[in-house]
């Protein structure tokens, strides 16, 4: 069989534009200004020899006039030892909602869902929610302690945790307050701010059940776990032991690399299906107990105010929810014709069974196409064909999960919970498409 080079599949390296003498000279002496100008003229000559032919009326200049990147030497390897997105993607970053919080350390940054694909969030775009700033922890000095109702309270080093049997699982992580700004009325323009406290990653770590087994927990009395962070806030949350034994992880990996510091490096709790605040970052301790702890973020926040003035406490599970991410609020359809309406659906109680899409505000629904793999407590991407002919439209999506639960409309949700509960707003989202193609966040009534 002929080699690739003989078949002409390998292009000659740019060096072959240069004379043999010049190449030898450069490798002996390096590039000095004199040789640099020689080099430039050599490249210019090479470029001129394949210069653009005359442009005809139907010709796309971007095809016919070869662009500079097609006619020049590219950048070397490890120009960015840690790769960065294209400069053309500079708009797509985490953003804060102005005025939402009064400080930057107890604050939130939102994931740009409008421009992401698939079911995984790039680690650098994973939303942030910190209560007392984020920290850079030295993994050599980090420990995990397990105590409480156990035979032996234990301490693990990171080295030991990385030696243990590990699993990797894809799960969504949604803040309980996601979409919390929208309870009363429309408050934000884009899906980044309305739904962007949502991300999903592949997490790698040690099952909590294994660690509890190792410590010999008291099966008769134990009902809850306290998870505690190593940062200044030493965030604490009570975890339902049932969840913890089922599928919770003490995770160090995120999307194939170590966790990002903003997401808890070197160790965080992963409690699939449960709101983000319980996924304690910079995890230093798990305590086995028989009564909940009523920590600050279980009594003053992350409690859902009901119309009768009671607060629902220990609301944890993120019920099924879906949202169209494109086209979505703040975007504009430039042309009429075919569009692929796409979005995300998820459920903290299982898998996504079905997603339906409406373009008329919920009067009529069509099934959307679900993309696999469809995993429990993970994001599921959906798509729906749509031909837009310049009419006004009201785009909605509605998910049904594996328990048979159907995502409620805003009216159905508000009828039970009122508008002041801040947390756990999983109502159907509406995007209004105007005749000029502008897409706006709206609520219907």
């Amino acid at each position: 069989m002929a080699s690739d080079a003989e078949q002409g599949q390998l292009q000659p390296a740019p060096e072959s534009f240069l004379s043999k003498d010049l190449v030898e000279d450069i490798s002996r002496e390096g590039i000095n200004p004199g040789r640099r100008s020689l080099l430039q003229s050599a490249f210019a000559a090479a470029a001129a020899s394949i210069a653009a032919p005359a442009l005809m009326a139907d010709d796309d200049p971007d095809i016919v006039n070869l662009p500079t990147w097609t006619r020049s030497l590219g950048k070397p390897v490890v120009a960015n030892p840690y790769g960065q997105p294209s400069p053309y993607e500079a708009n797509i970053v985490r953003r804060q909602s102005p005025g939402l919080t009064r400080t930057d350390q107890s604050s939130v940054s939102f994931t740009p869902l409008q421009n992401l694909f698939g079911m995984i969030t790039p680690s650098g775009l994973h939303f942030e929610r910190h209560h007392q700033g984020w920290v850079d922890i030295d993994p050599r000095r980090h420990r995990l302690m397990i105590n409480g109702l156990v035979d032996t309270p234990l301490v693990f080093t990171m080295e030991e945790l990385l030696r243990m049997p590990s699993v990797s699982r894809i799960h969504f992580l949604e803040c309980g307050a996601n979409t919390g700004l929208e309870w009363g009325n429309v408050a934000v323009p884009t899906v980044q701010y309305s739904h962007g406290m949502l991300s999903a990653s592949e997490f790698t770590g040690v099952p909590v059940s294994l660690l509890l087994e190792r410590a010999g927990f008291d099966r008769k009395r134990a009902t809850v776990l306290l998870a505690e962070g190593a940062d200044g806030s030493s965030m604490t949350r009570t975890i339902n032991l049932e969840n913890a034994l089922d599928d919770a992880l003490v995770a160090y990996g995120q999307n194939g690399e170590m966790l990002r510091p903003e997401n808890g490096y070197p160790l965080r709790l992963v409690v699939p299906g449960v709101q983000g605040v319980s996924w304690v970052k910079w995890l230093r301790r798990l305590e086995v107990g028989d009564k909940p702890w009523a920590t600050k973020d279980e009594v003053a926040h992350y409690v859902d105010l009901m119309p009768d003035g009671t607060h629902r406490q220990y609301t944890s599970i993120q019920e099924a929810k879906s949202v169209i991410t494109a086209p979505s609020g703040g975007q504009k359809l430039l042309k009429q014709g075919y569009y692929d309406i796409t979005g995300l659906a998820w459920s903290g109680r299982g898998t996504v069974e079905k997603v339906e899409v409406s373009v008329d505000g919920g009067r009529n629904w069509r099934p959307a196409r679900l993309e696999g793999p469809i995993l429990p407590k993970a994001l599921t991407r959906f798509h729906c064909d749509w031909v837009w002919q310049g009419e006004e439209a009201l785009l909605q999506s509605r998910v049904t999960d594996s328990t048979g639960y159907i995502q409620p409309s805003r009216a159905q949700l508000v009828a039970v919970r009122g508008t002041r509960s801040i947390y756990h707003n999983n109502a159907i989202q509406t995007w209004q498409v105007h005749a000029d193609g502008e897409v706006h966040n709206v609520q219907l009534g």
Partner: protein
Amino acid sequence: MSSWVRAAALWLCTMTMTSWAAPLPEGLADLGRVATEGELAAWDIDVRPDFVGLPPGSGDVWAGEEIWLAQCASCHGDFGDSNEIFAPLVLGNITEEDIATGRVASLTDPAVTRTTLMKVPTLSTLWDYIYRAMPWNAPKSLSPDEVYALVAYLLNLGYVVDDDFVLSDTNMVETQARMPNRNGMSLDHGLWSVTGAPDVSGSSCTADCDVAVTVTSSLPAYAMNAHGNLAEQVRDWGPYPGLWTETGTGRETAAEPEQLAAASAVVEAVVAPEAALNAGGCSGCHQMAGQLVGPGFDAIRTKYAEQERAAYLRDKIVNGGAGVWGSMPMPPMPALEEDALQQILAWLTSGEE
């Protein structure tokens, strides 16, 4: 396959069925060691609603006020009522009736600001949280007695206890019985357990559904740019570019990507010693630009752009002081490491942008 690997594989396979009933893989019990008493004492500081975990001690309202004014008031206001750094902890809106019933009646009134004390049902929470996390910029610096005093002061601000009240480990239970919203929490919902029953259900209708389709809420035009220019927040090529919401610029299209990229690539000439500022606890009160509790570092760097000012600033940072930027005092920061201090001083006085 070694016996260990086989055992681990077996364990993982059985795990999904009955995770905790499976035997541990062989050799796993050698990983991890027993925690010492001292280690448990250092980390296991949580206090439960039944006061398990509460260290002994006491403090009165007067002592609490003194500590409050020195260490807490800068962010929360003299009376815990400030809305500058965080939402108010207390406002004078808790009634005798609330304390008698254990239900804060005004929680049903949307016009009333929900303060911390209006919500918190459990006294243990205030104690636990202040001990573990406050002051925000120097967590875990308070002694148990100081925490008793601060909790007493906060309760006094909320009219829950009298001016001469002394809070201690011996009267927490009776004080808990006066917490204004102690009966205000409900566990009657399906959101604690994966198998919990939902309280709301959606409709399965798919055709000619009877739903209201009038737009009742949308962003007013003046608020469209409140989050900044949306054209610069969405991919600016492709089927759905962002709306140009910045008014008065006359611009129809977003800036060229090259320009945006060039702008974001500008590297700061002098890099802020962030590690030192964070480790020194400065960032809790100072941000890079703009006033927080203290002046922004941009303003400080402009004011003290000459190296000769380093000695003055050293003294101010180590010993604290007030009056240069306002009446709020800068606390002494004697614990700052010399290395970190030198880095900070060099940066503050470098005069470079």
